[in-house]
C-alpha cells in the first residue's frame, strides 16, 4: 500500500520534472531540429516538429560560406591554450597555498578572487590600447593571454579547494622518506591531484570557450573564435533560420557534450567553496 502511494507520487514527480526539463531544454532542441530543415520548413506556419525532410545541406553551406572550421580551430586554440597555460601557472601557486599556508594565504586568495570581479568594460580601452601597441589585436596569442588572466583566479581557487582535500600527512611521510620537493610533487601529489586538475581544466575550457566580451572586442578576421563567428550571423535578413541553427549547433555541440561531464564541478568552480 505504502509502496503504491510512493510509486504514484514518483510517477507524478517524474511527469512534472520531465515536462519542465523539456521546456527549459526546448530552445536548444528546437535549434538542433531546425538545423536539419530546409529554409522553407524552418519558418513554416504551423511549425513542423519531427516530420520533415531531414537534410544536412545547411551544415555544408555554413562551412562553405563562412569557413566554420577556421573559427573552430581558433576557439580550440584560444580556449585550450589559455586553460593549459593558466593551469600550469596555477598549479604551483595552489599547491603552495594548500600545503604551506601562511598568514597571508587567505588574503592572497581573496585578492585573486577580487580581480575576477573587475568589470571588463572598465578596463576595455587600456587593454585595447595595449593590444594595439603590442601588435596583439586580433591575434590568437593575445586572446590566449587575456582569457588565461581572466580565468586564472578561478583556476587557482578550484585547484586550491581540490588540493586541500589531499591529506598533508602523506606529503610529510614522503618527505621523511627523503623525497625532495620535485619528487614530492611529481610522484606523490600529482597522481592524487589528477582528478581535481582534470575537472578544473574541463570547467575553465568551457568558460573560455563561451567568453563573449573580450573575444568580440579584440578579434576580427584572423583570431575570431566561434563566439564572434555566431555574432556575424546577426544580420536581420530573411530566410536563414536553418543555416543560423546549423551554425549555432556546431558552435555549442562540443561544449554541451563536455558540459555533461562537468556539471558536478560547476558549483565548486563558480562559488569558490562557499557552497558545498
Amino acid at each position: 500500500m505504502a509502496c503504491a502511494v510512493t510509486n504514484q507520487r514518483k510517477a507524478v514527480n517524474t511527469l512534472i520534472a520531465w515536462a519542465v526539463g523539456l521546456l527549459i531544454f526546448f530552445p536548444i532542441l528546437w535549434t538542433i531540429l531546425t538545423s536539419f530543415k530546409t529554409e522553407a520548413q524552418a519558418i513554416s506556419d504551423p511549425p513542423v516538429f519531427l516530420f520533415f525532410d531531414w537534410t544536412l545541406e545547411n551544415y555544408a553551406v555554413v562551412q562553405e560560406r563562412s569557413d566554420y572550421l577556421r573559427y573552430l580551430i581558433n576557439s580550440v586554440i584560444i580556449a585550450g591554450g589559455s586553460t593549459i597555460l593558466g593551469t600550469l601557472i596555477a598549479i604551483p601557486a595552489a599547491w603552495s597555498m594548500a600545503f604551506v599556508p601562511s598568514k597571508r594565504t587567505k588574503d592572497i586568495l581573496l585578492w585573486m578572487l577580487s580581480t575576477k570581479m573587475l568589470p571588463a568594460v572598465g578596463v576595455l580601452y587600456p587593454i585595447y590600447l595595449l593590444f594595439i601597441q603590442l601588435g596583439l589585436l586580433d591575434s590568437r596569442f593575445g586572446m590566449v593571454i587575456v582569457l588565461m588572466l581572466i580565468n586564472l583566479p578561478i583556476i587557482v581557487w578550484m585547484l586550491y579547494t581540490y588540493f586541500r582535500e589531499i591529506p598533508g600527512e602523506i606529503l610529510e611521510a614522503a618527505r621523511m622518506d627523503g623525497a625532495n620537493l620535485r619528487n614530492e610533487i611529481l610522484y606523490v601529489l600529482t597522481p592524487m591531484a589528477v582528478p581535481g586538475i582534470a575537472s578544473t581544466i574541463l570547467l575553465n575550457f568551457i568558460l573560455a570557450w563561451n567568453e563573449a566580451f573580450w573575444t568580440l572586442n579584440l578579434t576580427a578576421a584572423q583570431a575570431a573564435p566561434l563566439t564572434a563567428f555566431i555574432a556575424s550571423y546577426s544580420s536581420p535578413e530573411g530566410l536563414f533560420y536553418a543555416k543560423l541553427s546549423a551554425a549555432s549547433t556546431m558552435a555549442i555541440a562540443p561544449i554541451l557534450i563536455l558540459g555533461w561531464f562537468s556539471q558536478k564541478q560547476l558549483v565548486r568552480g563558480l562559488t569558490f567553496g562557499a557552497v558545498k
Partner: protein
Amino acid sequence: MATQSSRSAARLMMAPAVILLLGWMLVPLLMTLWFSFRAYLPLRGGDQGFVGFDNYVRFVTSSAFWPSIVTTLAIVVGALAICIIFGVLLAILLDQQMWGQGVVRILIIAPFFVMPTVSALVWKNIFMDPVNGLFAHLWRFFGADPIIWLSDIPVASIILIVSWQWLPFATLILLTAIQSLDTEQLEAAEMDGAPVLKRFWFIVLPHLGRAITIVILIQTIFLLSIFAEIFVTTGGAFGTRTLTYLIFQRVLESQNVGLGSAGGVYAIILANIVAIFLMRIVGKNLDA
C-alpha cells in the same frame, strides 16, 4: 611543520600567478584612472590634457546615464527574481524521487553551456521574430497579434534571455544546498502535521538562505556586465543600453576615451560594492 626552505619555495611558486594578476589588475586600472581625468579623443584631436573631474560630472549628467542605470537595475533585479524563484522551485522538484533524474538534471543545466552569442541570436530570431518566430506562430494560433518582442518590450525580452541562461546555475547551487538538508527534521515536521507550505517556509527556506545570498551576489556580478546578449539583439537600441553597454559605446564606438573611462571607474566601484559582500561570505568559509 613547514621549514624555512619550503616557505621560500612556496613563495617562489606563488610568484608567477601573483605577479601576473597584479599586473593584469594594476596596469589597466591605473590607465583607466589616468584617462578618466583627461580629455582624450583618439580620432578627434587626441589627448587634450588634464580636465579634473569633468568627465565624471559629464558622465552622470549626460541624458543617457540615468536611463542606463534604470535598465541595468531592471535587468539585474528582474533576472535575479526569476532565477531565485524558479531556481528554488526547480531545486525542490529535482530533489524529489523520480525516474530519469539524471537526464532531467542535464536538460535543465544545458542552457548554461550555450555560448551567450548563440542564445541571444537563437532567441532573437527563432523565437522572438515578429513574423517568423515561434512565439509569433503561437500568438497567431490563439488569434492574438504577435508581440514585437525586442522593440515593444525590449528589456523584458533581454531579462527572459538572460534568465534562461542563468537559471541552471541558480538551480544547481540551490539543489546542492537542498540536498544537505536534514531529512529527519522534515519528516518529524510532517509527522507533527505541519502542512507543506509551512514546512517550506519554516524549514526549507531558512536552510537555503545562505545559498540564495550567494546566488544573488555571484549572479549580480555577472549580470552587471552582460554584453553579448545586448550586442547581438538590440545593439543598445530601444532603451536596452545598460551601464556596461553605455561605457562600451563611449569608449569604442564614439571613441571618447576620457568620458568612457570615467564611466568605467563608476562601474568598477559599483561592482566592488557587491564584491565586498561576496568576499566576506567566501572569506568566512575559508576559516571554517
